[in-house]
């Protein structure tokens, strides 16, 4: 498997680390982090996964350029559909 890093081009899998599902943004909460709603939101964020068979947005890290990426990959064929640099809003 190869991934095309937006900065470095097409590179071998060995250079990357995968973090996992990038489909849920970190809950943005102000105020009571201990409320039932906040607990539920964080439990969901940390532990629940869609885990689909098909296209899946994932966080991958490219070591050589020190960049977090969002990779859309098909979990059945490992075909990579899209790669972009992760933005502030979706930082893991």
């Amino acid at each position: 498997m190869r991934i095309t890093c937006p900065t470095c081009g097409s590179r071998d899998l060995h250079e990357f680390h995968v973090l996992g599902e990038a489909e849920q943004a970190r809950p943005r909460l102000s105020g009571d982090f201990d409320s039932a709603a906040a607990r539920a939101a964080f439990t969901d964020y940390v532990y629940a996964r869609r885990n689909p068979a098909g296209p899946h947005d994932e966080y991958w890290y490219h070591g050589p350029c020190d960049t977090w990426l969002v990779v859309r990959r098909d979990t059945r064929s490992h075909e990579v559909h899209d790669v972009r640099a992760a933005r502030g809003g979706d930082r893991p």
Partner: protein
Amino acid sequence: MGFSGFALLKEALNGQRGWTEHWRKAAPKPAYDVVIVGGGGHGLATAHYLASRYGITNVAVLEKGWIGGGNAGRNTTIIRSNYLLDGNIPFYELSMKLWEGLEQDINFNAMVSQRSVLNLYHSDGQRDAYARRGNAMALHGVDAEMLDREAVRARVPYLDFDNARFPVKGGLLHRRGGTARHDGVVWGYARAADRRGVDIVENCEVTGFLREGGAVVGVETTRGTIRARTVGMAVAGSSSLLAAKADLRLPMESHVLQAFVSEGIKPLVDGVVTFGAGHFYISQSDKGGLVFGGDLDPFPSYAQRGGLPVFEDVAECALAMMPMLSRLRILRSWGGIMDMSLDGSPIIDHTPVEGLKINSGWCYGGFKATPASGLCFAHLLATGELHSAASAYRLDRFARGALIDEKGVGPTPNLH
């Protein structure tokens, strides 16, 4: 017909013409008391214990492919109860006790072989960690023995004891661990359940749930609608896909785990040996092939086929532990899709959806769990109560922070 010494003798004289099919090719009925989705080891064991221990025989096991085509027929067959945490040890020890009586219980030779499991350690820190695990096991009545380097050498003289980076310093021996024939286990459970009237329906994929007022009251399948008072799902690596049809998101990722088998050689590896400085384990099948494996492929996968980087890592570990393996040819490799839970431990519980119970999260240790998983899930389906040996395997433990994380690596399924 039943298996016995007399039956073997009779068939030997009879040209082996009297053997019958192990289970009927059942067609689905419109309704059952219990429908179990997934005809792997866990689904079939559940059906067997429902019928034999709880007297519930109006049961169907629905399997989308064929019996033994999932992880049940793809694993490396290791059974053991050498766990560390309170939530796990009683469950896996119950499983070991059930393995010890399994063949009499189901009248089938599952080739359960308690040939021992030896975990090697390579540093003082690792020795202390293994001693702690051995003590935890002993406190729960599980056999555990610390071996020093010479005692390990006496059992497995062919290891690279003086490896410059990973010298073998000793090991934790679990004598009652070993292997069982994976196909034999599923065939045996299927046959035993069938003989008590359970319908085993192959080529029957569950495509959705029948809902009434929010509750699950049956399943939609490729062979029609089937109603049920209770539905239990035991679909291993497909858990998230099936749960999504009931609008549930699980604490689960699906990953492929690979295994490898070499050409057959003369008897060499007596028990199961695991490397402590990387992820690698090896045993020898009764046919003579060396069977081994290592880590998951790190990214989620439903491909049922693994990549070469993991194979490379497995091969490196193999040679660091047992240099003589470099001369061996690999015959086959394959993969299975694991239900990796977010803390590395299983779930046997109700779901938030009425009428639907879940059995999942077996990671890559679910073969050894097959008997206890079946018994505990049958208990839940029959009584609506959690079995005492599986009382920690709740779905809400993630929300409560009550994780059962044997490895202590947190919510990173690819590291469990």
